[in-house]
């Protein structure tokens, strides 16, 4: 879309180009990150067509040799090669982090919507739903994971058909834990948004002959879920980071692998800075994507549109 107002003053134009350079860098970094991840995953699924499974996409030796020849960067050549050596492990861990977060968020949403609806419009069910949300939000997530893992020993109940899907059955336990916990938080955010839909619209829905449930489905939810996007994005971002708690029940996701490598190599600072960068990239991607979604579904005239 051609923008109607072009920056006029020099200062505005400089600021504008600074912004676009910043944006370009961010997009480039994102493309590099996701390109690396996706190529690594695909390479693993197809059995190592590009490089043998477990090998970095570029040889560490070559990286070291190249950097050694660049004045000023030579001092970092060995570290760079070390990092490249670790990329396959990081890619595998990140894969599991992404899967656990995405699946738990999706399943949690499916539970959260009825929870929120019953909280707002139910009678007895409102109390059940309140009890559920308060219980899950009022106790530590890690304790919940431990109850599922040690207390109920759920990992041993994973049906045969599913047990081969992930390397360890505990992944299912983690997904269950994050789903149940995340649903409670998501329900709180969605509840708040549902309550902000004007009462009069519900009356109007009833007045044309829609049942209460139909009114909720056709009138309240389409608006409430839109209004919930910004706060729901917070839960998304939290879950990306909280998914690292799965490491405590031996799920080999990003944090677990980083911790293992660090204790083998003693390069704690480097490894955890790198791990932080991975999480940051995931979080930034999530919030950018959700901002796009919010803009795409914004109701015309209500001012939630983002000019891009």
């Amino acid at each position, binding site marked *: 879309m051609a923008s109607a107002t072009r920056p006029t003053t020099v200062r505005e134009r400089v600021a504008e180009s600074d912004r676009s350079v910043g944006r370009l860098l961010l997009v480039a970094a994102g493309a590099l990150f996701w390109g690396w991840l996706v190529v690594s995953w695909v390479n693993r699924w197809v059995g190592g067509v590009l490089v043998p499974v477990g090998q970095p996409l570029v040889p560490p030796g070559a990286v070291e040799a190249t950097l050694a020849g660049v004045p000023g960067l030579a001092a970092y050549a060995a570290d760079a090669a070390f990092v490249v050596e670790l990329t396959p492990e990081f890619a595998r861990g990140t894969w599991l982090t992404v899967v656990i977060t995405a699946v738990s968020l999706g399943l949690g949403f499916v539970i959260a919507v009825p929870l929120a609806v019953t909280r707002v419009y139910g009678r007895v069910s409102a109390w059940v739903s309140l009890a559920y949300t308060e219980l899950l939000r009022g106790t530590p997530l890690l304790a919940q994971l431990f109850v599922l893992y040690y207390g109920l020993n759920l990992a041993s109940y994973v049906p045969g058909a599913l047990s081969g899907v992930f390397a360890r059955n505990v992944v299912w336990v983690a997904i269950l834990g994050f789903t149940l916990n995340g649903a409670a938080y998501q329900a709180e955010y969605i509840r708040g948004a549902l309550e902000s*839909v*004007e009462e*009069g*619209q519900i*009356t*109007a*829905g*009833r*007045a*044309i*002959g*829609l*049942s209460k449930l*139909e009114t909720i489905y*056709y*009138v309240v939810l*389409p*608006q409430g879920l*839109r209004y919930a996007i910004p706060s729901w994005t917070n839960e998304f971002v939290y879950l990306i980071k909280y998914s690292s708690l799965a490491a405590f029940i031996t799920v080999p996701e990003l944090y677990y692998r980083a911790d293992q490598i660090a204790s083998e190599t003693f390069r704690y600072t480097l490894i955890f800075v790198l791990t932080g960068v991975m999480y940051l990239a995931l979080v930034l991607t999530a919030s950018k994507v959700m901002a796009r979604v919010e803009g795409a579904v914004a*109701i*015309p*005239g*209500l*001012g939630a549109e983002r000019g891009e």
Partner: protein
Amino acid sequence: MSDDDFLRVADVSKWYGDEQVLEDVSFEMDRGDVTVLIGPSGSGKSTMLRCVNRLAEAQEGSILLDGEEVLSPDLDVDDLRREVGMVFQGFNLFAHLSARGNVALGPRRVLGLSDADAGERAEEQLDRVGLADQLDSYPAELSGGQKQRVGIARALAMEPKLMLFDEPTSALDPELIGEVLEVMHGLVDEGMTMLVVTHEMSFAREVADEVVFLDEGRVVERGPPDQLFERPDEERTGRFLERIASHD
């Protein structure tokens, strides 16, 4: 009181908790009649209207619509509401739907029309209220008068046999009232049966068959507009009319 009244409200009483808001309210309408309800704020006008489509539940009395008892516990309220359209002071449009979507929702989901048929009906009704050029506008993009006309089209799309209007022009800027009244005049000409709460006295004078004056939940006086406006029997009616006249 004849047996073939189209709408017969008889001795309707309603309480919210301990507070009685309607007390033995009675009036009748023939098919095609326009009845205007007036009265001070809190007198129970909205509540009376809402009892007719069961958005509020009257505890005592009887409301016969086309021979059927509206207050019967066996009545399917969704069936009733299909046949009784309602227009609100605050428009209450569905914010996430375009004008067309607002009007089509009832035909689509309540009457079970196909998307195409519901859309077509919506276009017809929006054309009827003079909004053929705003089909794809969203409520937030419309003026108050346009919003209210969408609200009227939304009710009409259900092909109701009775229309309830609850102060349809009270929330509008004065210059936008005319376009809504014009649409309502059109409906009167088409023979629509209308029960209207409004303080637009000129509208009442021109089209009402009967004006009912409510105060503190009771019918103080009712009669043809000329009589009620010019020669009210009750002192209270006169005082109320003077008060709203001085606001105009």
